[in-house]
């Protein structure tokens, strides 16, 4: 107790909050991890009584499951690339050009996220039927992009706004054409925002289930879609293994982005006034 007494009330409260946060955040993750490696685990026990990799080999040997993993990563990559190509110029335009429709666009972007997703998807599905996009790769990509447009435009747009017009002018002044200014000055300065948005886009595409389910069945089953049937058909350990595989890229990417964005840009870009 002497230890806590030296800390003072505020520190203790902070400590308690930290513990609660860790519990809520890492508790389920830890549980998931343990479950994925469990052979036998009775309820009151803190740890599994028997460890096993059985479900890992089951998941990794099942061809359709492996295919769904591949599919997920391919789709997420394509969606991210296309989103970057579409959204970066749009984001720049939003940041620089004060056209009157700006507010309207922002509003409509928010709107797509305000409705219950399923309602929106059903409306889109009707359209897709008419255009023969149901059960196609293109259809899935499109429905994912509808989701990612929002942050892929607004996060980089905020980043572009942080690049002052006069910093671009300074580059013009020393002899850079508008294109070179964008490439050497604007884009690198907005890089942290663009990376964060790309990671978000990749992950949200990777985890997207509802839209993919609606548009992709039966031929295109990504990991999150497959997850539903696994949870229904197999013991929870299989679901845990699958979840870990699905969570892993999220964690790796977030850490990579944090390190990357942290190392060069956060330090030197955002500290600037």
């Amino acid at each position, binding site marked *: 107790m002497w230890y806590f007494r030296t800390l003072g009330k505020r520190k203790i409260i902070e400590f308690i909050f930290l513990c609660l946060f860790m519990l809520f955040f890492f508790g389920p993750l830890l549980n998931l991890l343990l479950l994925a490696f469990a052979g036998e685990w009775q309820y009151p026990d803190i740890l599994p009584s028997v460890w096993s990799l059985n479900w890992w080999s089951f998941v990794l040997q099942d061809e359709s499951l492996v295919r769904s993993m591949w599919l997920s990563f391919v789709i997420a990559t394509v969606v991210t690339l296309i989103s970057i190509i579409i959204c970066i110029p749009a984001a720049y335009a939003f940041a620089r050009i004060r056209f009157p429709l700006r507010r309207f666009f922002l509003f409509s972007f928010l709107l797509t996220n305000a409705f219950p997703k399923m309602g929106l998807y059903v409306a889109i599905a009707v359209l897709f039927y008419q255009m023969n996009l149901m059960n196609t790769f293109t259809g899935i990509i499109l429905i994912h992009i509808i989701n990612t447009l929002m942050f892929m435009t607004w996060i980089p747009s905020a980043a572009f706004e942080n690049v*002052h017009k*006069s*910093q671009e*002018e*300074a*580059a*013009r*002044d*020393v*002899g*850079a*054409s508008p294109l*070179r200014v964008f490439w*050497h*000055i604007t884009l*690198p*300065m907005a*890089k942290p925002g663009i990376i964060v948005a790309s990671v978000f886009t990749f992950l949200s595409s990777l985890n997207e289930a509802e839209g993919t389910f609606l548009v992709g069945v039966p031929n295109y089953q990504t990991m999150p879609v497959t997850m539903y049937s696994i949870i229904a058909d197999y013991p929870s350990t299989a679901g845990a293994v699958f979840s870990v595989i699905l969570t892993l890229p999220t964690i790796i990417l977030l850490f990579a982005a944090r390190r990357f964005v942290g190392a*060069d*840009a956060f*330090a*030197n*870009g955002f*500290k*600037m*006034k």
Partner: protein
Amino acid sequence: MTIKLEIEHLAKIYPTGDGVKQIDFYVNEGELVTLLGPSGCGKTTVLRSVGGFIEPTSGTIKINNKEVHHLPPEKRPSAMVFQSYNLWPHMTVYDNLAFSMKLKKVKKKVIQEKVTEVLKLVHLLGMEKKYPSELSGGQQQRIALARALLLEPEVLLLDEPFSALDAKLRHELREELREIQAKRNLTMLFVTHDQEEALSISDKIVVMNNGHIEQIAEPQDVYNTPASLFVAQFIGRMNFVKGKAVNNTIRIGDLTFPFDDAYTGNVTIGVRPEDIQLADNRTSSIDALVDKSMMLGHFAEITLQTKMGSLKMFVDREQMKQIALKSTIPIHLNRFLIFNETGEVLNIIGG
């Protein structure tokens, strides 16, 4: 002397109706010309038109006798130093300086030599690897100046380059700028709203007000013989007194002065505090009540109540000892200006 920069009939009217018009002036080689005026009078508009960041509504801009107003900024032989420095935060000092030369595919060795040379000139040798965020405001502005100097511009444009810095640093950088100018024979167009700064560094001052030019003259002439009431009140300190001109006399209250001009109507008399002096016995004098005194270092500012109204004068330490508060002293106006109702100078009396 050769004219480096020449601006003729320049006008820029923004969609809002604000802007500048009838801008005509030139800058000789090796000169520092200042655009001086209150905030919003159009200084930046003129400067940015020269730099190529604003397209003028009409008029011509010539550098080395060649029209440049149709060229984009990257093709103009001018370089700009901005108030907000505008260094690129993702590049080191070295890369900030090398950027223009890398674009031109200059050899690496030459780039290194030039960067070292210019860093020596701005007293920041050894800062190559630092990022702008690691530098103080004064250092950042020196780097921005170095970046502009590396372009070897025909005309260097500076838009209130020191106004974000504290007073002491501002003084230092002004002096450094003058030194660099001497070494490099720079031709500069300098924008400021600070009349003291303009008076101290300029070869020539272009005083602007409300989108037009009020006066173009050397610093001492702008101070001594302002072309208008606006210039007189914007530059230096001046007392203003209202009066009337009738029948070759000026009346202020019940005081009268002879006035050698046919003008009849309201006038404003302007007299600088240093042109008010204690009257000795020989000169005609006005009685003045010493109302207030404010110590300002090596001199004091005294507020006087006279028949003309309230006047301020400067006195030095010795005189201060002889002047008691609330006493009446005789004063004499050594030199004063007379302006008509529209603010034009009618006459300068004395001095």
